[in-house]
Each structure stands twice: as C-alpha cells, then as structure tokens.
C-alpha cells in the first residue's frame, strides 16, 4: 500500500494554487516585492511540510498493517509445525494401519508431549507480547533475592547443559542486596538468556553466569557464552519481535524470536537496561541491570 498517486497530485496542486493565491493577495496588500516573495515562500514551505507529514503517516500505516499481517503469518506457521508433529505422530500411534515397534513407542509419546509443550510455550509468549503491545503487562512486585532466583535457574539448566556437553558456571557476589521487582517476570528473562546461551553454543563450549553489584544503585546479571555469536549486520535487530539472526535460523529453526523482545520489555519496565556484546563465531555476552530497592 503506497501513498496513492492522486494524493501527490492533489497536494502538488494545492501547493501551487496556494502559492499563486498568496502571491496575488500579497501584491494587493503589501507594497514591497521582497515581503510578498517571503510570504509566498513561507506558505509554500508550510504546505510542503504538511504534505510530508501526510505522506509519512500513510507510509507508517502501511508498515503497521504489513507488520501485523506478517506477524499473523509467522505465528500461524509457528503453531502449525508442532501441530503437525502431534497430528501425524498421534495418527501413527492410534491407527491400526502402522506397526510401531515397541522401542519407538515411548519416543513417539514423548514427541507428542514435547510438541504440546512447545505450542503452550509459544502461546504463552504470544500472550505476553500481546499484553506488552497493549501496555497491559501486570507487574506483581515484591522484595526478593535476585541472586537466589538466578541460582535456582542455573541449577535447572545444569542437566540440559551437561547433555549438550556445555560447561555451565555461576558466580554470585557475596551479600548482594535484595531487589523490588516481579520475580516471575525476571524468571522469564533469566530463563531466556540462559536457554539462548546454551542452545547457541556448540558442544565443548562454556556458559558463564554472573550476578554482581554494578554500582551503588544497580545489580547486574551477565550471561556469557562461547557460541555462534551474532553477525554484525543482525545486531541492531536483535530485540525486535520475531527477529532471528541468520546464523541462529541456520542452527535451529525452532524458536519464536519473541524471547529477547520480551526480555527487553520486562527489564525496561523493571527500571533496568539490557544490552549485549557479540562477535560472530566467538560468542555473545548479554548484560541486564536491575535497580536495587
């Protein structure tokens, strides 16, 4: 949807006509030529700026509409993938026509369960994103130890990291103060960062998690991996909805692309900042600060 052609004609005609009219009126009311010219120029510039604003609004509307329909297309595809997995695996298990060897049966049941979880996760992510868009993200703040939260998350991921032959380590500064924030939302953020770090690191690599005091007013979480890194050209899009860096897509096609967008929103709303440093092929480090109560 482009700015319709006729709108240019209309705006152009309006500018020309107004210039002529203001010239004619100007020469009748004002004696000096220079002042008339200035008036005509001023009027034309004003209309030109107006026209520019109108064109930009059209373009923005078109962009929003395009993004919405792309969003829906992507969501639809993301949901269909696990759905197909469930549908066909279930069909094989339940129809009499196919012989599923016993050794495979349990695997197939696990496939169904995993894909159901995948769909639930995607739908949860989508709900969060939708609430963020509408400015309705509920925050239930309380005082708690962020260090403890990160600690328990790292424990949860130990097995997964081991299975992928990745060394997962945690360093927490002593006597870290508590923070006043929503623990369930921050749990999402840490989950996301640790999950990404492990998934995009090849076997034999490392993921290091630190929590320490950044300064008098903030604590900082850092998740460093020795993984595939983010290519320079993709770095500015990393926090965008659905964006997945080219090398991330090549590594695994799963992943909603919503995680970092959600992280950024949560951290911002908690009064912190989130950023990263990355080099393709060497690794990535994500940093998030949170204000101390």
């Amino acid at each position: 949807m482009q700015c319709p052609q006729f709108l240019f004609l209309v705006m152009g005609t309006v500018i020309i006509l107004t210039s002529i009219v203001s010239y004619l009126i100007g020469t009748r009311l004002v004696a000096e030529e220079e002042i008339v010219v200035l008036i005509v120029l001023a009027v034309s510039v004003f209309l030109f700026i107006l026209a520019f604003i109108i064109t930009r609004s059209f373009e923005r509307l078109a962009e929003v509409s395009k993004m919405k329909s792309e969003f829906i297309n992507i969501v639809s595809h993301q949901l269909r993938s696990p759905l197909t997995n469930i549908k066909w695996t279930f069909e094989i298990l339940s129809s009499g026509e196919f012989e599923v060897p016993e050794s495979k049966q349990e695997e197939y049941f696990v496939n169904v369960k995993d894909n159901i979880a995948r769909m639930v996760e995607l739908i949860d992510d989508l709900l969060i994103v939708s609430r963020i868009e509408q400015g309705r993200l509920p925050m239930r703040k309380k005082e708690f130890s962020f260090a403890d939260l990160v600690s328990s998350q790292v424990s949860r991921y130990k097995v997964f990291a081991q299975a992928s032959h990745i060394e997962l380590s945690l360093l927490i500064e002593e006597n870290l103060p508590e923070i006043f924030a929503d623990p369930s939302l921050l749990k999402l953020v840490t989950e996301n960062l640790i999950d990404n770090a492990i998934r995009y690191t090849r076997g034999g690599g490392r993921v290091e998690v630190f929590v320490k005091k950044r300064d008098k007013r903030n604590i900082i979480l850092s998740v460093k991996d020795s993984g595939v890194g983010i290519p320079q050209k993709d770095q500015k899009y990393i926090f965008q909805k659905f964006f997945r860096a080219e090398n991330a897509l090549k590594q695994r096609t799963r992943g909603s692309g919503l995680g970092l967008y959600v992280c950024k929103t949560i951290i911002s709303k908690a009064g912190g900042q989130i950023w990263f440093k990355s080099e393709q092929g060497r690794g990535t480090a994500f940093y998030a600060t949170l204000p101390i109560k």
Partner: protein
Amino acid sequence: MKKILFVEDEAALQEAVGISLEQKGYKVVRALDGEAGFRSAKTENPDLILLDLILPRKDGFEVLENLKKDQDTKDIPVIVLTNLEGMKDVEKAISLGAVSYLVKTDYDLKEMLKKIEEIIEK
C-alpha cells in the same frame, strides 16, 4: 524398491513419515537440513524428493533451485511438504519446478501418503 529422500528438520516428522513410508515398501533416506538434502539427492539418486521449506543451513527454495539446475538431480520429481501456506510461496515453488505443493496441516498422514504414492508410481 523405490527410494524417497525426505528433507525435513522436525525429528518427529522424520519418524512418523519415515516409518510409514518404509512400511509401505519404500526405502527412505533422511536429511535434516538443506545442505544435507542437496548432497543426499546427488549421492543417493532417489525416485522422489519430499522437501520442507523452512530448513537450517539452506532453505527449501534454494535447495529446489539447485536441484533443478544440477544435471544429476533435475529430473527427480520434488514434492514440497511445508506449513507455509501463502499463495506466493506456492507459486514460487511451482515456478521453480516442484511437481506438487502440500501443506502439512491440510492432510492426515494417510491422505498424504496416498498423494505421495500417486506421484511416485506415475
């Protein structure tokens, strides 16, 4: 025994479709990404290729293009098997030389197998 190359990154589908095709009497060669898919097409010389579009390393469209440009593989019929259902994707796949475009969620496994049999037995 006819040979089918299945290029698909979802492990659950490789299982479900693979096992059912094998039980129908076909030999199934599996490829989990675009590059492996193209390589296997050249080395295995299958009678039919089932090609997903969203794949790691090289997407399905690029693989399809390469298959049709390569002397060894250009005559192998390719069925695109995907969950992308936009008109533009269908047109692009057909124009690149796919003999059929099937949207996975539109079919039961049994129906899909029938479609595959129709094409490979022609």
